[in-house]
């Protein structure tokens, strides 16, 4: 590990100007649960670490019944799941927040950091996609938005320019009869990275049987987390029975294009994509009915 500078700016503009000076030699620090490990293990060489946790916009967690949720990029998981109202409104995100690492990691790790690290197996990304989250990105030219499913471009890569940073997520308020779920498969019960992860959300018609809108997303089955529109297409406007769920699971299997590595074979991951899609949808439906 080489020596680096550390700065904790108090404003977004200050952070942007630091990034402008250092470009790719600088990196935003959120919880640091990935970044610090990468620097220590010589997997990332940096001149400057810019701590985002003193910037108000990056630490905002608020809900408005009209505009929905604002989730600052550096808000740790613990703040999310300890907020009783918000965590109940966004159950898929809550599932992910509770799955990432152990308690100590959850005290530091953030959705924003998880997204910017852009691991194909990140737990929070399929959950964010299931909840239709949109990213607010700031740079020298101002701000713009990108849907979470369009954010990652490859393992460890994303749309952020060298002088840009993720400010916050914006998620619409949950509609009526809405349920969502994120789950992953790991061989152990904790301390593992998803072999496959799956997020799903369902907006049901008032009969609680017909699907109005659906979203299915998969992690660790492609270079980036996937939004599986084909799975949603099998569900929307139809009655959610075993046959429909099986069709959605088949669509998820068809969309999965994983690699074989130490966490699982290609064949097994495709199989799991189907299993988890079924389970995610069943749980989402259960939650939609509970509401």
């Amino acid at each position: 590990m080489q020596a680096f500078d550390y700065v904790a700016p108090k404003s977004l503009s200050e952070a942007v100007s630091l990034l402008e000076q250092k470009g790719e030699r600088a990196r935003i620090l959120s919880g640091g649960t990935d970044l610090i490990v990468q620097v220590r293990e010589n997997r990332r060489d940096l001149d400057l670490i810019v701590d985002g946790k003193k910037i108000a916009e990056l630490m905002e967690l608020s809900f408005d019944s009209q505009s929905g949720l604002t989730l600052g990029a550096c808000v740790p998981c613990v703040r999310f799941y300890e907020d009783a109202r918000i965590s109940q409104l966004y159950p898929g995100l809550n599932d992910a927040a509770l799955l990432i690492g152990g308690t100590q990691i959850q005290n530091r790790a953030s959705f924003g950091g998880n997204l910017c690290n852009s691991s194909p197996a990140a737990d929070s990304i399929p959950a964010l996609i299931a909840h239709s989250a949109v990213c607010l990105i700031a740079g020298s030219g101002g701000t713009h938005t990108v849907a979470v499913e369009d954010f990652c471009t490859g393992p460890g890569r994303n749309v952020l320019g060298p002088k840009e940073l993720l400010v916050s997520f914006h998620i619409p308020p949950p509609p009526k009869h809405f349920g969502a779920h994120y789950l992953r498969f790991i061989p152990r019960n904790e301390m593992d990275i998803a072999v496959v992860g799956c997020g799903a959300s369902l907006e049901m018609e008032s009969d609680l049987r017909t699907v109005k809108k659906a979203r299915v997303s998969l992690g660790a089955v492609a270079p980036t987390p996937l939004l599986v529109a084909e799975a949603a297409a099998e569900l929307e406007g139809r009655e959610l029975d075993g046959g429909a769920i099986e069709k959605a699971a088949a669509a998820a299997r068809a969309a999965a294009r994983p690699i074989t590595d130490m966490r699982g074979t290609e064949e097994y991951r495709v199989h799991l994509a189907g299993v988890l899609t079924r389970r995610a949808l069943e749980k989402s439906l259960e939650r939609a009915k509970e509401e």
Partner: protein
Amino acid sequence: MNPTQTMDPAKTEVEQKYKVIGTRPIRHDGVDKVTGRAVYGADVQLPGMLHGKVLRSPHAHARVKSVNTEKAEALYGVKAVMTAADFPDAGSRTANLGELGEVPLKPMCDNVMASDKVVYHGHAVAAVAATSPHIAEEALKLIEVEYEVLPPVMDVLKAMEEDSPLLHDDLYTDELGEKSSKPSNVASHSRHVLGDINQGFAAADHILEREYRCATVHQGYIEPHAATAMWNPDGYLTMWVTTQGAFTVRTSVHQILEIPVSKLKVIPTEIGGGFGGKIPVYGEPVAAVLSRKARRPVKVVMDRTEVFQATGPTSGSYVKLKMGVTNEGRITAAETMLAYEAGGYPGSVVSLGGICMFAPYNVENLTIDMYDVVVNKPKTAAYRAPGAPNSEFAAECMIDEFCEILDMDPMEFRLKNGAKEGDIQCHGIPHPRIGCLETTEAARDCEHYQTPLEGPNRGRGVASGYWVNAGLTSSVTARLNGDGTVTLQEGSTDIGGTRTSIAMQLAEVLGIPVEDVVPSVADTDSVGYTEVTGGSRVTFATGWAAYNAGQSIRSQLIEQAAAIWKVDKDQVSLADGVIATTNGDSKSISIKELAADLSQKGIDIGSRETVTPQNHGGAYATHIVDVEVDPDTGKVTILRYTAVQDAGRAIHPSYVEGQMQGGVVQGIGWALNEEYYYNEDGHLMNSSFLDYRMPTSLDLPMIETIIVEVPNPGHPYGVRGVGEVPIVPPQAAVSNAIARAVGTRLGDLPMSPQRVVKALSAKS
């Protein structure tokens, strides 16, 4: 709730007989450990100390054409750089590794630092000492190594093929005692034969033939290797090492560096687990050479990746097994071929795998062929019952398959075929008094086994296990203090609470509380020669040395009291910490009073003892596991687990239970998820605890234990080694449970979720 039941028919007798043995005192080193004050390998700090880092091969198999260290040496803060050229030429000298026997020195030196060839990913090629670990790391990047990359050989059967690339041009097979004519990756082929295998199979009603494989797995000790060396300009070398054997480190460093043992002192630190993996030396000679060159103390601490890449995994293995049984469930014959991966240099534990494989059974017709094979993986080290899990997994799985075919209760099968005193083992030596049948009976009768398991996708598995244990040389030094306490220096590094279990044996002899014994682990200058903490031998052998020390102190006290009272020493006895006459004149003095008196007179009471006991006896275990299989994901959940084991005599039952539970946990990890995952280039891809999946506390129920006590006649208190055998049964027990749960038998370890799913889909 304490999940332990003690099955001891002679319990009341033992309670009357012993005051200290069988109790559960708090360990002497407990406070230091729970307050973080205990000094482990990486905690050592010395004035002016430098930090050493090791450059490792990015290739699995390559010739080292050149190593250029000039730029690293020029970096500010770098004080020394070394390569294998800094070691004396090993020539054809040999090294004695105690439990692991006599081995040639050259491979040992080359394993510490490659000279001409790297034979595994992560093999050390150079090292740097610098004023900070960060500078040392940066310096490593400046070392230029030119490699000629060779094709890696990653699988034992492929390595045995005629046209396989060779790891070592000068390795010839020891083929049943004869040297082969051309070089090979097969270092040796040996064989055990009993009876007549053809007659045995002719007498069988059912014959099965199967193949079984075990992945390479690591011991997974929590503390990485750490060594600190201070090589004084006067030629004396002092080392602080986390090791299972300070004397073994001394011998190894002495041999590699050709420094006299008299100039070499090894101070063992506390050790955070070893399981066999902290017997070989890795960073120790490196730290020493760096210290000599830099003229300052040097500490070399591995990170977890280095531990996985370059230190002792156990052998991956292939086992082919054919067995025959009668309709009545009697084993008539067993024929097996064991091929174990040794890693980059010869010396796997295949012979121990052969000896243990059928030891829980009386098998009269037997052929065991054993192959020791080099592959491009780290040189294997001992791992808890080294070699036994690989082979016994095969035998115990097949026996369960027979039980299913015969519709016979697995405990009944084991009792019918179980080994007992006098039965001939595969190497021709009869069993001494063993507790194989008693252990199985206790397992059969326990509440867990007697309670039916219900529910879909659930199954109960049973497996037994045997481990040979070891005796070997152990020493202690004991001294009576003026206050009546005894200072006890032990040569064995304490991994499993042995400070206390050894001290308890001395306390028992003198009839004093164990709190009045002050045990410590001594350095190599301060106690007699002691072999490694391994082979489940410390409570047995070092305990015996302490027993002898207690007897000696007892005799000396009796003699001193007799002299004071002017009576014959035969008329004086010592019991419960009090010395008294037995001739009716009612004189008595407590050890404390006598110690004070003798101390004032300047009379030293003490003892130094060295023992090499031979009759260590073997250890037996039978385990019961209930599992539930998720048929969608293939994930196996352990619902309940009971380990039953013969401890001979449980000196400190909590430590015996701890060993049993620890062994089971490692065995379950081996069974379900642990494996070295190499890519096609032979690169180890999962060298972290994240991706090398050992079970966590969240993956396991409380492991229930039942201690059986069939005293070992070869020990004054009946002790048998307990530490290793509990890792042997879990792999097969879990496989057998999966078979009973979902009807598919898995013979390849680990039985990871993806393997279970694959087996289930193959079945349907």
